[in-house]
């Protein structure tokens, strides 16, 4: 697994260096550009901040790759803002998934006078960094932070293009109670911002829908022994167990459920919808369900083309959030075009009015900067593979069911997520 990741990192970095090297070495295509009367080319810097080292590097690099792909696509297409030709430039920083480091790199990006930032990955990084961006007047779109608090600080510069826990949790609960007809639900969370946020939101909605929460247990994101809490839950006879957390816990948990002879269904969020979950749980994973914000990747409107382009470029599959990073750049550039300026002070107001058809689907923001009506897909493990089961709109009852012939989504997803 590690070698795999290392190779990804390496490939991505080689690609990145080659590209920057090419960009620097090739002289401007039109020699006229140097003539005084030719239209000047304005350089607009787009920042990307995500963990590029450490245990979450593969997801962080995935985001950065998405941003890079968007920058290159736009440059190839040619962008004009306010009548001036614009060249986009990527400035990428590593936040190490650490809250303190995140504010430092945010400051670095503001110093570098970026027009806009795509980042960060973790909510714990996005939240403190959002203040730095707000102070610097730089708009920020997080491709992946799902903590509801992120957009509740009243900053006008803060946006995200992913459904937050307050959207994913309730949707999951509606699916559990309305579709799966769960009546007695046990909830476990991993005591992290992500896991607990998801579980809390799930619990609140499940209760209003009339389900009984018969146990609320907690573990940690380091633990691997859940026998004690599972035994307690077994005694309360649930028909469904919901877990807010990530795959290293979800895998062994499902396995231990089987050992204890617990027959209840198992459902969780995007943190456990990974191939690694199936590996860790073995046969016990069969029938486990998990949700992921967004449509299945191959069903996103521009998804197929994007996946192919990404694979051709980086020689690897999309992990998870690259499409969000890709769309975020387009959202920024569209806003700049409408405002006729790449000055954040001028185009910031336009971001909120975004109505864009992106790779991940239609993108529009509510007044807090959250994505409106993000769809959520429920997956189920069948025969050792995650298969899309149902697509749920946050505000509506379960809607479309994907065609039975929909190919299995076997793309790797995050091993860890907070």
């Amino acid at each position, binding site marked *: 697994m590690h070698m795999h990741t290392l190779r990804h990192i390496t490939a991505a970095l080689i690609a990145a260096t080659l590209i920057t090297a090419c960009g620097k070495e090739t002289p401007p295509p039109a020699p006229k550009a140097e003539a005084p009367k030719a239209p000047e080319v304005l350089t607009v810097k787009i920042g990307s901040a995500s963990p590029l080292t450490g245990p979450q590097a593969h997801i962080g690099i995935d985001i950065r790759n998405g941003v890079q792909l968007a920058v290159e696509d736009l440059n190839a297409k040619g962008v004009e803002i306010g009548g001036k030709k614009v060249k986009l430039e990527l400035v990428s920083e590593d936040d190490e998934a650490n809250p303190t480091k995140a504010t430092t790199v945010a400051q670095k990006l503001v110093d570098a006078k970026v027009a806009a930032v795509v980042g960060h990955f973790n909510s714990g990084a996005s939240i403190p960094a959002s203040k730095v961006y707000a102070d610097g007047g730089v708009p920020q779109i997080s491709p992946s932070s799902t903590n509801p608090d992120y957009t509740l600080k009243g900053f006008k510069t803060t946006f995200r293009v992913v459904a937050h826990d307050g959207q994913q949790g309730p949707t999951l609960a509606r699916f559990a109670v309305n579709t799966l007809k769960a009546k007695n639900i046990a909830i476990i969370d991993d005591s992290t911002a992500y896991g607990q946020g998801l579980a809390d939101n799930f619990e609140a909605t499940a209760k209003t829908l009339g389900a009984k929460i018969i*146990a609320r247990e907690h573990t*940690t994101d380091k633990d691997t022994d859940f026998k004690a809490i599972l035994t307690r839950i077994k005694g309360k006879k649930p028909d469904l167990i919901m877990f807010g957390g990530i795959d290293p816990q979800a895998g062994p948990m499902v396995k231990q459920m089987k050992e204890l002879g617990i027959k209840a269904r198992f459902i969780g969020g995007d943190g456990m919808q990974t191939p690694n979950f199936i590996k860790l749980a073995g046969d016990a994973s069969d029938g486990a369900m998990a949700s992921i914000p967004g449509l299945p990747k191959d069903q996103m409107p521009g998804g197929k083309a994007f996946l192919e382009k990404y694979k051709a470029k980086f020689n690897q599959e999309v992990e998870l959030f690259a499409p969000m990073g890709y769309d975020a750049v387009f959202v920024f550039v569209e806003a700049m075009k409408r405002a006729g300026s790449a000055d954040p002070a001028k185009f910031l107001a336009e971001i909120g009015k975004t109505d864009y058809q992106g790779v991940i689907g239609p993108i529009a923001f509510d007044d807090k900067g959250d994505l409106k009506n993000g769809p959520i897909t429920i997956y189920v493990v069948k025969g050792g593979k995650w298969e899309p089961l149902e697509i749920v709109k946050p505000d509506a009852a379960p809607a479309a069911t994907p065609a039975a012939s929909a190919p299995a989504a076997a793309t790797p997803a995050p091993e860890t997520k907070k």
Partner: protein
Amino acid sequence: MEIFAQQIVNGLVLGSIYALVALGYTMVYGILGLINFAHGDITMIGALVSLTVIQLLAAAGVPAPVILVLAGGSAVLVCAILGLSIERIAYRPLRRAPRLAPLITAIGVSILLQYSAALIWGKQYISLPEIIEPAQFTIFGAQLTSLQAAIFLLACTIMAGLLWFIKASRMGRAMRATEQNPDVAGLMGVNTNTVIAFTFVLGSAIGAIAGLMVVLYYGLGHYFMGFMLGLKAFTAAVLGGIGNVGGAVLGGLLLGIIESLAAGYIGDLTGGVLGSNYRDIFAFLVLVLVLVLRPSGLLGQPGGERA
């Protein structure tokens, strides 16, 4: 009742793993008076080595019993060499240094082991291919697998073997002599350096076995897995009376049961005010309470100058 029996079984199995790791702490402490902070991480290395061997051999289609023996063997070998080198390089030069020095080196060694493992194996959780399908049976309404039973029996067997070894063998007598007074033991012709090195090797080898058991039981490995395990195991050793082999096993089993019962019943007992989120605190509370009330532990001799 069924649930209570299950919780006791859960606790005994978890406790057996603590006990296996605690043996390493207690042996080194007994002889050197040093908390080998790196012991939890030696267990981690043992776990990851056996995991890798299992992965390789399972892919090659080797039968399961052979895989287990080879995985255990290589883990024991690697950990024994590791224990020996750590003692020689990091602890022996500091044997007469102020107390703080070997403690800080031990922390340094622990960090080194963790991040070397992160370099070698990566930081992802590594999963175990399913090579054994443990039989499942029921006792007093509690679910039990053959693997769980094996872990419990193994902890007891190793403890018994160790007790016999220390009591009856020549090396065991030398260990006891060194524990009581290294200088006098040296004068009596005991090569204390060899005895201490041997203790590290033995402790590390048992740690390696513990690592293999953790991998088989939970089905995964991770570069950071040794930290919490080591801490809990140390607590177990203190609870039983550090330096005492029987105490380590008793402490391990007790701690496992305490944790299981706490996680299982605290919510009901406190009316939902406290929950299973406080499970990890119990180990530390036990540690503080034992150290304050009875520093010599359950089986240690009170009045010793241990604390």
